[in-house]
């Protein structure tokens, strides 16, 4: 079926089957490779994207469901320059292998949009569905908390 998909503010006209999963369409048809194929059952968070600003598991969404909605991936967030949060991920050494990073950046982006200065508990809760097997999470949490502190400084 005909599908028009808005990915990172670009319109895509695609011919898809109803059984095509959004994650696969984003990676193979649109070419956005930042959402990763991990568990493919909603457990690991590595396929996280934003739909209308909300974090969603793209492995659990049919591509046809996304029509009329705005999809954001890390390619969109970092299109012109890295976001403040992405820079803080670098300075806090929050990546090792990097497989979970796009999903975690998006989950944290959603959190900071709704709650500009989150507590440690808020950060842990927001990232609770994103598994990382390398870092032990602490450098990731520190980066998000640092982004929150900068937001606080700006608004003070």
């Amino acid at each position, binding site marked *: *079926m005909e599908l028009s998909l808005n990915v990172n503010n670009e319109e895509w006209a695609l011919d898809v*089957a*109803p*059984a*095509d*999963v959004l994650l*696969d369409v984003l990676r193979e048809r649109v070419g956005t490779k930042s959402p990763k194929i991990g568990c*493919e*059952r*909603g*457990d690991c*968070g590595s396929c*996280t994207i934003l739909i209308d600003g*909300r*974090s*969603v*598991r793209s*492995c*659990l*969404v*049919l591509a*046809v*469901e996304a029509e009329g909605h705005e999809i954001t991936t890390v390619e969109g967030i970092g299109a012109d320059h890295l976001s403040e949060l992405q820079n803080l991920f670098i300075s806090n050494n929050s990546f090792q292998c990097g497989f979970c990073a796009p999903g975690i950046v998006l*989950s944290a982006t*959603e*959190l900071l949009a709704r709650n500009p200065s989150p507590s440690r508990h808020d950060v*842990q*809760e*927001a990232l*609770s*569905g*994103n*598994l990382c097997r390398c870092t032990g999470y602490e450098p990731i949490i520190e980066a998000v908390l640092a982004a929150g502190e900068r937001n606080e400084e700006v608004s003070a």
Partner: protein
Amino acid sequence: MIAHEFAYERPTTLEEATRVLTEHSGSVRLLAGGTDLVAWLRDDAVAPDLVVDIKAIPGLDTIELDGDELHVGSLVTFTDLIESEVVAEHAPLLIEMAETVASPGIRNRATMVGNICSAVPSCDAGPVLMAYDTTVHLIGPGGARSVSIDDWFIGLRETACSDDEVVTHLTLALRPHGGVYVKLMRYGGEDLAQAAVGIVEYPGHEYRVAFGAVAPTPIRAHRIEEVLRGKPLGEEVIADAVALVRDEISPITDMRATAEYRARMCEVMLERGLAASHERLEGAGPAYGTRLI
């Protein structure tokens, strides 16, 4: 990737939805949040000819207070519940429950009605909706009808909803109350309940107790409610209730927990949950959302 092929319809009215369902009766699945359905499609656990997406039907995504009733539409997500001031004020147990469901990436998509339609044993919404005297409203080719949540769960992944019906909304009967949802799990994030209990105390020493993940469906604990009825909570009364836990539940051993651990923890959770519900009824006790175990 989903190996199985199917057709996809996105009706924009309930009439259109029920017509499509009637025409394809028997090999059709409804799609709301999809967090269960898409995983089941991928696993080949279900293989419908047709998937009917109900998200384009207007009016199903609302939370409305109507006197002493709370209406929750079938497209209301767990995140919608958590962010609703009306729910926080009138049915705070829904939020305590919703906050334990997986993680934000699932809660942004998964609906509470979808949760009871999937009807897995660990369904988080089941015990809480039982404690809130909930009615499920459906529409089908024969018109609208309603089913008590107590008659909703028929068996594992089986409900009172026929293949040609759509759930439109839930109605919760609101009264002043104190309640808890206690969920035992190995870790936060994505884990399903090992055991769960939903408890509500209404004024006049009236109680609701329902368990999750310790039987093929969420179950209402009628014998426990009966032994508590009309009695102020004290150590002895709570002990009488706790003594009945193993008669009410039928836990199994699986990868998440042993049957014995589940049964023992249900006793602990009921004991602490009854005390906390009572404190909350009196306007004290731990804030909603505080973990009791």
